[in-house]
């Protein structure tokens, strides 16, 4: 890994291939029983398939939206890519470098750490309450770029200007800042180390619409200026539509559809995507084409049957074939992929 230069080799920036994360969940036997049952062969523990063989790419300068309901594995996927969690299998290549082999616990000291940064959901909760805005922004720069003194100070001021945070607010603590200002601090510290990939986890979910617009426009502008790629996680589909070039739709650990944002929104192919788009609140309901509501609850992600479509049971289409054969992600148009037998 040391011989690699981050200076743009061809190909996508991020290449995720067959990435999987399974968590072992509790068994009926107690821990003590398991520890002492050295004679009997122990049945394998149930596995929760949080992310199941997911493959996709993110191009340089591209914004990819990741949508899906809570519990579908969005956050686990993000934590895997961000190297906060170790994958069970699969590869995470960032500009040619394989990141999946590094241990998450050591990754903070890894030279690749600065290349992927993250903006967390609630800036209020993710900032250290005892750090001023300047401390919060300085921390990653000091650690990863080894800057100090006047140079560090100048960098902080520059970042504040870039994110539209008035310099006089830099000495304030998070509780003295408004929601929009805290969001700016969260963005400033993430871009401080000049990442190539910025992961945004619902960056505007805690903000009022009037502030949300400014933050989204700021993100758009920063992307243009700094040439970063974005992975934008959100369940506000209207925001995804505004910001993203391409969308990935996840359902129970699987990517069920992906394609250019405009195409997916105009003509969703997977029944789950259809339901998702049909659920976007609309000021003029009569313009909506077809109304689709999902009944039931999602299937269990624990030891899912590998031959049954994950959406089976909630899907309005559901045929016997869906219970016998798991649909694979296959091309459906020049840049689109869908995992459904009937799309």
């Amino acid at each position, binding site marked *: 890994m040391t011989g690699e230069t981050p200076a743009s080799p061809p190909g996508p920036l991020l290449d995720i291939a067959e990435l999987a994360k399974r968590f072992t969940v509790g068994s009926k036997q107690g821990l003590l029983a398991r520890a002492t049952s050295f004679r009997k062969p122990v049945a394998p523990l149930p596995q929760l398939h949080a992310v199941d063989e997911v493959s996709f790419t993110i191009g340089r300068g591209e914004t990819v939206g990741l949508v899906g309901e809570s519990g579908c594995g969005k956050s686990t996927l993000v934590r895997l890519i961000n190297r906060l969690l170790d994958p069970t299998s699969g590869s995470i290549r960032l500009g040619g470098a394989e990141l999946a082999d590094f241990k998450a616990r050591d990754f903070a000291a890894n030279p690749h750490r600065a290349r992927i940064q993250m903006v967390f959901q609630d800036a209020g909760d993710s900032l250290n309450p005892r750090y001023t805005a300047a401390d919060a922004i300085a921390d990653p720069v000091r650690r990863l770029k080894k800057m100090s003194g006047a140079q560090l100070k100048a960098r902080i001021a520059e970042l504040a200007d870039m994110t539209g945070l008035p310099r006089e607010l830099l000495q304030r603590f998070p509780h003295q800042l408004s929601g929009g200002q805290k969001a700016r601090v969260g963005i400033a510290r993430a871009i401080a180390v000049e990442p190539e990939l910025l992961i945004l986890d619902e960056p505007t979910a805690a903000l*009022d619409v*009037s502030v949300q617009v400014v933050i989204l426009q700021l993100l758009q502008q920063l992307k243009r200026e700094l040439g970063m790629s974005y992975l934008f996680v959100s*369940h506000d*589909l*209207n925001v995804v539509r*505004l910001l993203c070039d391409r969308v990935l739709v996840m359902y129970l650990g699987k990517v069920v559809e992906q394609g250019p944002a405009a195409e997916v929104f105009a003509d969703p192919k997977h029944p789950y995507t259809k339901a998702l788009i049909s659920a976007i609140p609309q000021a003029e*309901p009569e313009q909506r084409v077809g109304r689709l*509501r*999902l009944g039931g609850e999602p299937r269990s992600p624990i030891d899912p049957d590998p031959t049954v479509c994950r959406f089976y049971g909630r899907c309005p289409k559901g045929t016997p074939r869906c219970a016998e054969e798991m649909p694979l992600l296959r091309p459906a148009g020049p840049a689109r992929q869908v995992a459904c037998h009937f799309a």
Partner: protein
Amino acid sequence: MSAVPALAVEDLSVEFRTRSGVVKVLEHVGFSVDKGETVALVGESGSGKSVTAFAVMGILDAAGKVTSGRAMFGGADLLALNEHDLAEQRGRELSMIFQNPRTALNPIRRVGRQIADVLVRHGGATRNDAPRAAIEMLKKVRIPDPERRAEAYPFELSGGMCQRIMIAIALACRPALLIADEPTTGLDVTTQAVIMDLIGELAGEAGMATIFITHDLALAAEYCDRIVVMHAGHIVEAAPARELFAHPRHPYSAKLLAATPGETVSLADMASIPGGLPDLRRTDLPACRYSGRCERRLDECTQPLPQRTMGERHVVACWNPL
């Protein structure tokens, strides 16, 4: 043409006493909800939406004080009732769905019992038949396998299920007025749609009046008959939902609409609302609390606000409406 409304709030003002001074949270708020009608209260955080609901329900924080106004409901003024009479009304005639179902439910009581509690306290059910009625309610809010789910604790259920339990509790005694305070915030869009359909259907069946508090204008427009826009403790505009979307008359409503992501807009076309809410502790608050942020401000704007009628049931509090 309309009969007596289910709820008529008139001239409601609320103050909060805090260490740093008196905050005038609501000022001269007035609106009404008819039987079977759904009215949305929308606005940014801090605009006074929830305080309005809390004042009507009589569950204001101890620091809050109603300084003027009436809330006429079924011939009585809710704001003048004593705690005992109000407790009789709550649960039976008026009920509320809170924002976060997980924190609003009792974490150490089975959900079926929580529904039964309301039925026993307000619905005249006995302890013996209440569990069966509770299961009926679970069926009504379309919880699969209601017999088993009645035995579950809130932590065993998903967010959408917990919200359905809240709805079941709120609607168990067929109230005449339901206040839903951001009932779908934090839920997935697909779940949100199902929950909103459910509230709408059950409200329609029972001819219930509903106040729906939200910051999502598109959601309000889809599910509500009328929209009341609040800003810094004032009602700035009230109009039928469609009309508000097509022709907002108050500059704030127009800005709010322009900031709402929708289908046809692009990010470059969207505009934020400059400035923030005024400090409500000030003693010299301007008559129009939006005037500090407003681009259409005139000299008249320092005068007490007019209530201008712009069409049928369309009122705007502005000297220079669009």
